[in-house]
């Protein structure tokens, strides 16, 4: 009996101790947990005051930005640089029968169009942006793009009106250029706005260990210089899309400080021209055919990791070669020319280098040539081979902040014109600001 009592007593003691120890341990653990929890409660209550709820709804905003680009320009030509450039051999007029605009730069003060950019995520499927170029008495849609955000397999489809993905500078808006003006090869081959077209683009980011992007575009073909459709009874009517492009971008990984990208581009499309040979105010011969264009681009960037671009270096080059393969559809002045070919083959390149010699300051040099290949086969069965034109430019710019820039540029031109060789100096002082959304920069 006594033994039994002692057993029970011992049992109770043991169980009691164990459970007490257990609950003590639990209490202790609970203490640690609740300390942790109440710490975060305390933090949360402090954070509430500072956490700005508008941060969370920011994505619903429309991002807007405006660029004002004012500049002083002077060149020492008699007739003005825009007209001189039109006389460069091999890259001359190709009238579409309508008045075309030169985006003419005059000696004295100039204002490049005001650029108004709007962008937003539309819904879970699309993003969109538009850039409007506004000038005195004139406005133009530079870009109006709808882009998919949720296609699988690294695919993106874009549509609307946009800068073609060919080359490198073609996609850049004028305020992103590293020099005051665009390279000659762009201006002479594509005109003042680059290859900017209505159409659709499909691109694919390949699943390779390095950057590899393929793109293809179906475009309407409305580029006055190379891919144009003229409404005229004398010319065959072609439905759009009339221009097809494709491009590849390749970038090997080179470590933290270096980046390099190579690109190849190809475009082919219908091209038509209407000319007024005797300058009596009415067109008298019409051409129809195709233009083939191919190009190569290269950029290397070195990041010195110092503040504000100090020590950074960029080397960039592009080359384009185009062949207009046209046939005379009708020739009122010399009917015998009808059915004969007019073939033009021109090329051009630029090489530019920029160096950040101090924080926010860059110096740049650009050398360019057009018409290294410059052959024309005329309907009168003659063949001409013209010389090349060149230009060298030096640039100095000062980015006071992310949003403002002052730039000084001087260029020496040596152009091959119809009436001989023309040398000229160009000088520009540019003052440009961006306001609105903080822009993020593409590579």
């Amino acid at each position, binding site marked *: 009996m006594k033994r039994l009592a002692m057993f029970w007593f011992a049992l109770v003691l043991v169980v009691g101790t164990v459970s007490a120890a257990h609950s003590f341990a639990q209490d202790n653990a609970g203490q640690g947990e609740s300390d942790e929890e109440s710490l975060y409660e305390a933090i949360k209550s402090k954070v509430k005051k500072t956490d700005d709820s508008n*941060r969370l709804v920011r994505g619903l905003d429309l991002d807007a930005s405006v660029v004002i680009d004012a500049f002083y320009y002077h060149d020492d030509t008699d007739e003005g640089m825009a007209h001189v450039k039109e006389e460069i051999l091999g890259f001359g007029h190709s009238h579409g029968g309508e008045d075309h605009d030169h985006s003419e730069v005059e000696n004295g003060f100039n204002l490049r169009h005001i650029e108004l950019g709007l962008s937003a995520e539309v819904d879970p499927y699309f993003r969109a942006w538009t850039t409007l170029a506004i000038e005195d008495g004139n406005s133009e849609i530079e870009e109006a793009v709808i882009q998919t955000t949720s296609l699988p397999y690294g695919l993106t489809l874009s549509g609307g009106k946009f800068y073609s993905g060919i080359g490198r500078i073609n996609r850049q808006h004028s305020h992103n250029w590293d020099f005051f003006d665009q390279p000659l090869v762009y201006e002479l081959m594509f005109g003042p706005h680059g290859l900017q077209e209505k159409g659709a683009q499909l691109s694919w980011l390949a699943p390779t260990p390095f950057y590899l992007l393929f793109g293809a575009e179906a475009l309407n073909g409305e580029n006055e210089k190379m891919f144009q459709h003229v409404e005229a009874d004398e010319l065959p009517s072609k439905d759009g899309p009339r221009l097809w492009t494709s491009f590849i971008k390749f970038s090997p990984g080179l470590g933290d400080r270096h980046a390099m990208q190579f690109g190849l581009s190809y475009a082919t499309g219908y091209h038509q021209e209407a000319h007024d040979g005797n300058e009596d105010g009415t067109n008298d011969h019409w051409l129809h055919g195709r233009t083939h264009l191919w190009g190569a681009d290269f950029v290397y960037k070195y*990041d010195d990791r110092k503040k504000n671009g100090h020590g950074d270096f960029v080397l960039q080059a592009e080359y384009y070669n185009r062949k207009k393969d046209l046939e005379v559809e009708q020739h009122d002045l010399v009917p015998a020319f009808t059915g004969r070919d007019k073939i033009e083959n021109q090329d051009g390149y630029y090489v530019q280098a920029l160096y950040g010699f101090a924080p926010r300051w860059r110096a740049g040099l650009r050398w360019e040539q057009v018409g290294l290949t410059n052959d024309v086969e005329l309907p009168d069965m003659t063949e001409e081979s013209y010389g090349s034109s060149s230009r060298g430019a030096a640039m100095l710019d000062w980015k006071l902040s992310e949003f403002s820039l002052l730039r000084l540029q001087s260029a020496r031109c040596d152009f091959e014109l119809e009436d001989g060789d023309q040398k000229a100096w160009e000088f520009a002082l540019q003052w440009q600001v961006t306001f609105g959304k903080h822009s993020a920069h593409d590579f």
Partner: protein
Amino acid sequence: MSNKIKHFGLLFILVFAILSPVHAGEPDKATILTTTTDLADITKAIAGDKAIVKSIASGKEDPHFLTAKPGFIVQARDANVWIRIGLDLEVGWESPILRDSRNLRIQEGAPGHIDASAGVMVLDVPQQRVTRDMGDVHPYGNPHYWLDPLNGRIMAKTIANRLSELYPEQKAIFQTNLKAFEKALDLRMFGKALVSRYGGARLWKLHLKGNLLQTLDADGQRNELAGWYGMLIPYQGYSIVTYHRSWIYLTERFGLKTPIELEPKPGVPPGSKHLARVIETVKNVQIHVILQEPFYSRKAADLVSEKTGVTVVVCPNTVNGAAEANSYLELIDIAVRNLTKALEIR
């Protein structure tokens, strides 16, 4: 011509379609891409060997200004998770990388896009309308919040919780790793004796309420105060000058004051007029230390030092910003030790 190019293109596509699955690496390991090295280090501490963690920034550059290089786009394309500092720190380069990566898992708003600023204690939130006349003012507050070790603790918790949601099967490991990280951080902050007596969370709570020192005094534990907090406690209320307003999270946490910066406005380089004002302030307030990051020019700091005898301390503000700053805890440690040393000297 056109046909050749077409064939060439087709060949390319074929070759890469065949090559594409080869590089995939370790298939069951998540790839986490962070914008900065600090995030990468904290994330490594949480994820352990369950993920491959990489950072976009190298730590050597100013994280405001990076180029959206094609290599980053490739990394983002393959990432399962993207972690950013947020508060507009990466505003100049995050969106093109995310957009061009075409990776739906990590787009803003997707579960794989983690903003580490969620829940951290933010300073310098503008109390008035922000204009760009004020320089690089961040409308959502000062983004250098990782330099406050308490924020480091909060970031680790946010990352652990979000990763646990994404990979529930690894939750236990992430939470264990989180506890270990918190413990290591608390030990460095308050020293071993106090952490084992009170527990880290309790010390932080007392510190937040502002009665840590009273509690320690009441318990007769003041002498046990060690770690970063113990090192800097003798200098509470002292003033220092920084180059950019990037150190305020550290100075505020340890009770130091920053009455003036070398920059007249955020992002605006110092001019002589402003430096004259800095020199005056240094003399009037009796400031003995200028603290700045290695990527800023030392010219202005040296000039002020020449005129006033103030000590210039150059410290990285991000992991890998200097060789010895090889982890988040080391980073804070270096800053605290260098500051203490400079404050002692005078």
